[in-house]
């Protein structure tokens, strides 16, 4: 595995090989292992170790990147040369900034940020030895336990148990040196019966936060309770979306909370910042330091990630910015109507076209949180949704997305779950959805397959638009 010291040595060599005005190196490395099971047997079981250096060179307004995963002098020289060749032939970009120094990147010289500020607090360590130390045999034992839950309920199970340790760092020739180390363990369980299924997924930097038996039991319960699903007509229903379903559908709007997206006029927030777009009960921030969050505290240029309040009482307050986007926005015709314009530390590695994006989303805790059970209890007629699947954008400005329910969809009537339903297709505007939220739970760290992990609540939403059904 890479260490900060090894990376510093590699960066020294990269600098020696380069004739560019400025040089940056981003390091990523991981040891990743995943045990995959299906049909109550382990059928795939993998481990990999890889480290990558990605070198960016700057020549007077020209920049480009080359990446290699071998660190001998010849490979590094080749990557430096490739980056420089790609940069030199371009026309100068007047908006390209010099690389940030440590002072600009995190407000003081020295190491990765630790001092709290009004908008930033450093996350506590996200590296757990016990997660890194999980062995193939440990994973097999957990899978065996999940299979035994399936056996108890006469079901078939499929899923994964993975663990990883990863390193991420950025160095540049202006003295910036940032490093982040993290572990992650993840379990995803599907239980299958003849005509029904159930699913649960969780991850955490600390494996001791995972509860494989509980996940397996919940998935099994959903499978049993949704057996022999019935078909009801599509239409507008009150839905209770479990956190994973909320995560996967709302994730489609956060690409638009970006200065570049506004400048490109591809954001649904164009002409809408400062307006009440969602219900008053919706508050959303991006906060890398939030305890259940994960990820590094700096962005693709090494800038520290600030905590940014994106939505307050349903009003979109602002978007996030990479360094380079700030000046462009200030000089643009949109400057007066987009809220605060300042670097927030959400940029992707340069060069790129998309600029920035908030990726540590935390929904605000509602004034009166309601559990999923309470939401069910207060529902006369509605649909309980475990999970949404294959979500794609239909309309970029009205933010209509389509997708399917999956792995546990139930009819709720008279305050109780009645029976399983065949799955639906939805075509739903996210603007309408977040304007129709009647109740929310306490937000939790959730993980799905369509969006990055977030801290989101379960939601009870009225008039959710199911347009078709399928055959199971």
């Amino acid at each position, binding site marked *: 595995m890479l260490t900060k010291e090894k990376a510093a040595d590699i960066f020294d060599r990269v600098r020696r090989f380069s004739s560019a005005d400025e040089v940056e190196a981003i390091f990523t490395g991981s040891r990743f292992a995943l045990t995959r099971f299906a049909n109550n047997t382990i059928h795939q079981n*993998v481990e990999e170790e890889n480290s990558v250096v990605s070198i960016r060179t700057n020549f007077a307004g020209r920049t480009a*990147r080359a990446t290699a995963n071998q660190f001998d002098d010849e490979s590094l020289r080749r990557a430096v040369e490739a980056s420089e060749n790609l940069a030199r032939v371009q026309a100068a970009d007047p908006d390209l900034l010099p690389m940030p120094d440590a002072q600009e990147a995190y407000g003081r010289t020295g190491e990765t940020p630790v001092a709290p500020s009004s908008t930033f607090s450093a996350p506590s360590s996200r590296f757990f030895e016990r997660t890194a130390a999980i062995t193939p045999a440990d994973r*097999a034992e957990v899978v065996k336990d999940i299979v035994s839950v399936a056996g108890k309920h006469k079901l078939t199970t499929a899923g994964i148990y993975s663990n990883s340790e990863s390193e991420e760092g950025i160095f540049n020739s202006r003295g910036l040196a940032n490093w982040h180390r993290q572990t992650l363990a993840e379990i995803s369980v599907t239980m*299958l019966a003849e005509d029904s299924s159930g699913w649960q997924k969780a991850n955490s930097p600390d494996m001791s936060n995972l509860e494989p038996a509980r996940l397996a039991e919940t998935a099994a319960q959903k499978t049993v309770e949704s057996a022999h699903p019935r078909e009801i007509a599509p239409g507008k229903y009150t839905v209770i979306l479990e956190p994973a379903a909320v995560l996967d559908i709302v994730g489609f709007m956060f690409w638009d909370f970006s200065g570049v997206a506004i400048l490109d006029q*591809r954001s649904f927030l164009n002409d809408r910042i400062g307006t009440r777009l969602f219900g008053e009960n919706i508050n959303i921030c991006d906060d890398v330091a939030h305890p259940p969050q994960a990820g590094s505290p700096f962005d693709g240029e090494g800038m520290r990630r600030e905590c940014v309040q994106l939505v307050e009482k349903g009003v979109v307050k602002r978007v996030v910015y990479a360094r380079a986007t700030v000046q462009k926005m200030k000089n643009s015709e949109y400057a007066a109507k987009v809220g605060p314009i300042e670097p927030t530390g959400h940029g992707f590695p340069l060069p790129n076209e998309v600029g920035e994006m908030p990726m540590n989303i935390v929904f605000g805790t509602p004034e009166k949180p309601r559990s999923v059970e309470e939401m069910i209890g207060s529902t006369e007629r509605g649909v309980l949704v475990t999970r949404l699947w294959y979500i794609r954008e239909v309309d970029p400005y009205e933010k209509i997305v389509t997708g399917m329910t999956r792995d546990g969809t139930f009819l709720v009537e008279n305050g109780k779950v009645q029976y399983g339903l065949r799955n639906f297709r939805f075509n739903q505007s996210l603007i309408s959805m977040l304007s129709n939220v009647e109740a929310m739970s306490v937000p939790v760290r959730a993980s799905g397959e369509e969006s990055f992990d977030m801290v989101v609540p379960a939601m009870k939403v009225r008039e959710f638009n199911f347009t078709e059904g399928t055959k199971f």
Partner: protein
Amino acid sequence: MKTTARLALDAASVRGVTYADARVVSICNRSLTTKNGRVGHASESESLGIGVRVIAGGAWGFAASADLSRAAVEGAAARAIEIARASARVKLEDVRLAPEPVAVAEWATPYKIDPFTTSVEQNLDLLLKVDSEMRAVAGITLAETGMNFQREESWFLSSEGSDIHQTKYSTGAGYTAYAFAGSEIQKRSYPNSFGGQWQNRGYEQIEEMKLVENARRVAEEAVALHRADQCPEGASTIILDGSQLGLQIHESIGHPIELDRVLGMEANFAGTSFLTIEKLGNLRYGSELVNVVADARQEHGPGLGTFAYDDEGVAAQSTPIIANGRFTGYLSSRETAHTIGAARSGGTLRAEGWNRLPMIRMTNVSILPGEKPLSLEQLIAATEDGIYMETNKSWSIDDKRYNFQFGCEIAWEIRNGKRVRMLKNASYSGITTEFWNSMDAICSRDEWTLWGTPNCGKGQPQQVVGTGHGASPARFRNIRVGSAYS
């Protein structure tokens, strides 16, 4: 590199495996984009490493390392065996591999111009010309272009004696013009959306695509969509262009015929399939006109699923998938072949790179063109009422691959054999087998293109590979349209 792979096999064999293979893979990539007259990104990458796959104790293990030192390679082999022995703790039966002849071979993608010998200036000049053409159209608010080249060189050695060296090139380019006005964002792409058109060829692919020649038209269409009528909701005859039909094949034929999905091996992530094994040879998948093959051979064309050998050393094949509407074949591997009574793998096991386990992937899953000459314009002329849809805008399908919904960037209403008005926000939806059974016309070979889908995701950890889909425009009756906006 062959020596490195041999080292891994030797290290595995002394530890008592029943099967092992090793793949050393080197991947080089160039990626260029522009946005609104400037370079968006310019990057190149190299990735080199080894993946070792073993069967020990009747179960699979896989370990991969970027470090190709002797100690690291032997360590990866030992680790793969340790993992296999852990897998064996939770197994119902031993892994069985269908027999496969030993192969010793060299193969490379045929190409005229090695794309990596073209200069970055030349590449960017072309993209910036396209960009300039698009932005010359009033109303265009965002113009994006992109070009990608990849060279993948692999050395595959197995404990059975196979020794295969392959070099594959792929080349792709495309662009999109966006127009934001009022409360709408409209876009048009060429030659296809989501990355353009990709094939396993050299730079000649780029030269033949007429990128500059089509840029202004495409941009004008993006702007014109703002004045177009909304696609109506209801039942309609539809005609799909070849690129959209290619994606329709990908989602509603290519994925459901993956035998690992059918067997439940993807149930936790990608999903399963409605094509349960008893349907093989029995299901009427489509109308008599529907003939589909999965063909990885060079003679099928330079698709993203074209190769000489798959990533477990099985020679490229052509498998009939649907013959005159009847379902006849799956995509299979050495491990899964026996489940359908096949004596041999269909040769579809592929990995994203050295650090990924090969799994069943689409090769080139293509619908064969109609035998009678029929151009798109003739097909439109022969259609009394309907909607012609072009270029994918959104796609979604359920986890058994029954219910789908696709959106297209642009459409035209057809009345009495003529395009009478442009339609925006077009979409159609349906159930897979009902849809394919409603196909009543397909254009002939001169309208047939082997489209590339460079972004097919599957597996845990997820792997993205390219797939090929030959298609020509086709007509479908009584299809639900417009429900995306209902």
